[in-house]
């Protein structure tokens, strides 16, 4: 199930074509408006098709509403994937009533849930987490990592460019494209100057013995 916006529908198109190429036909593939907040009946309809896995592609509000409905509907599926819990786990924990609600869920984990070690520019995740906590007084989250990563790219661009005119900035970005490895992955642009989205790993949440949420990667971190 996907929300009918560019972000989610394009992922659904890719996913369905890849599944079909692998000989798997989705038993249920429907779009819902992005403003959807009630998923109970949709879940019931999906359950009636007995899927082996449920993949819900939405924005954070959709994922929250979907998981809340899943929790209270009584429907059970062998595997459930949603996008944003891996990026905003604390938001989902507070909305779903604790870490146990996320146990077993598949998602795209992002920093700080995953730690890239082979970086060549900027602070590592542990260094940034410590600096952020000291400066801001709050624990680091994906949005702060993404903001820091943007600043790193701008900093590198300014350091590389000969002048501030548009062409020079563009040449500077092209020069380090594919070579800049930060705590958020490799920065790369295509021939038209658009940033190439990286392939995110898929992870599965579990709760460790001390009651903390952790993620186990089921596809490799690239």
């Amino acid at each position, binding site marked *: 199930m996907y929300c009918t916006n560019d972000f989610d529908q394009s992922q659904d198109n890719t996913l369905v074509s890849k599944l079909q190429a692998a000989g798997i036909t989705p038993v249920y593939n429907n779009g819902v*408006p992005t403003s959807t907040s009630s998923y109970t009946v*949709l879940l019931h309809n999906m359950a009636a098709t007995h899927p082996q896995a449920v993949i819900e592609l939405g924005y954070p509000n959709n994922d929250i509403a979907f998981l809340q409905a899943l929790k*209270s509907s009584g429907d059970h599926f062998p595997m459930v994937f949603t996008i944003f819990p891996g990026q905003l786990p604390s938001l989902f924990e507070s909305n779903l009533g604790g870490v146990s609600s996320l146990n077993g869920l598949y998602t795209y984990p992002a920093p700080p849930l995953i730690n890239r070690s082979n970086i060549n520019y900027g602070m590592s995740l542990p260094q940034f987490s410590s600096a952020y906590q000291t400066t801001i007084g709050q624990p680091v989250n994906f949005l702060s990592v993404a903001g820091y990563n943007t600043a790193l790219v701008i900093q590198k661009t300014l350091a590389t460019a000969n002048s501030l005119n548009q062409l020079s900035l563009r040449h500077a970005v092209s020069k380090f494209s594919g070579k800049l490895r930060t705590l958020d992955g490799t920065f790369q642009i295509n021939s038209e100057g658009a940033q190439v989205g990286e392939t995110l790993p898929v992870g599965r949440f579990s709760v460790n013995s001390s009651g903390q949420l952790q993620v186990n990667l089921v596809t490799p971190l690239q």
Partner: protein
Amino acid sequence: MQTFRVEGRLLRILFYAIISGMLFGLFFALMSLGLNLLFGVMRMVNLAHGDFVMVGAFIAYVAYTHGILSPWLGLALVIVILGGLGFVLYFPIGPRLTGSYDPEMLSLILFFGVSQILEALAVMVFGNNPVAVGYHVLTVKPVNLLGQAYQPSWILAAGVSVIVILAVYGYLYHTRLGYATRAIMGDREESESTGINVHRVSAIVFALGLVTAGLAGVLSPLVIGSIYPTMGLGLTITAFAVVIIGSLGNPLGSILGGLIYGISLMLMETYLSTWSTMVPYVLLLLILLLRPTGLLGKGVRRA
């Protein structure tokens, strides 16, 4: 045998959509009731209606985060806070608006401003992220009805909605104040000439309108999940659709409008989910084209 099994499954899906739609619709009947009352009595178009629902939801959220875990106490809090606020707010606003040359248009503009203020204040206080109120009923096992599982939270919200709607019905049709309210709905000036204290009754109805919106707000985490400061606009549009389907100015029409909206939405989610958010707008257009007075409307509306 295979055909029977498929037909049985399709029937079960249809039945589930209808029952869920009724539960969902009853909540929206309550949600739109206040909008209808305010228009019926004072000819006020409350564009901030959904924002008062949001205020009710955040009162419940604040209460919950301060240890008031029961929705019943949240409902009581909203009755006191929004009831008091509505009664006090009426006197500087109501008489001027109802005495103006165009109360519908002026109230529409005024409440648009109120809506913006409430939304901005809520964003400042609570931020933009959705938050949840984790009532215990959300974790209770689903209720089995004719072989299918329904969420207890929806059943509770629908049940409370029915009780509140019946209480408002009882007020309108079985109390002296209710007779006065209906008299004002019929003709404000004639009611005044018969000795009815129009402003006192209007203030009570204004408070009642905000209270019913607030009560729907307290119940909203049970039905629509997370709450957020900008949720008001969408709710206002849906509430308008519901009251116009039933009949603008007729509180009983809210129930019919709510049921039609809820069932239509769930049927759309079942059979044509991509277009489901069009439901309130399509119903609104159909009603305005086919029966502009609403399904329970008897005469020509003045607005």
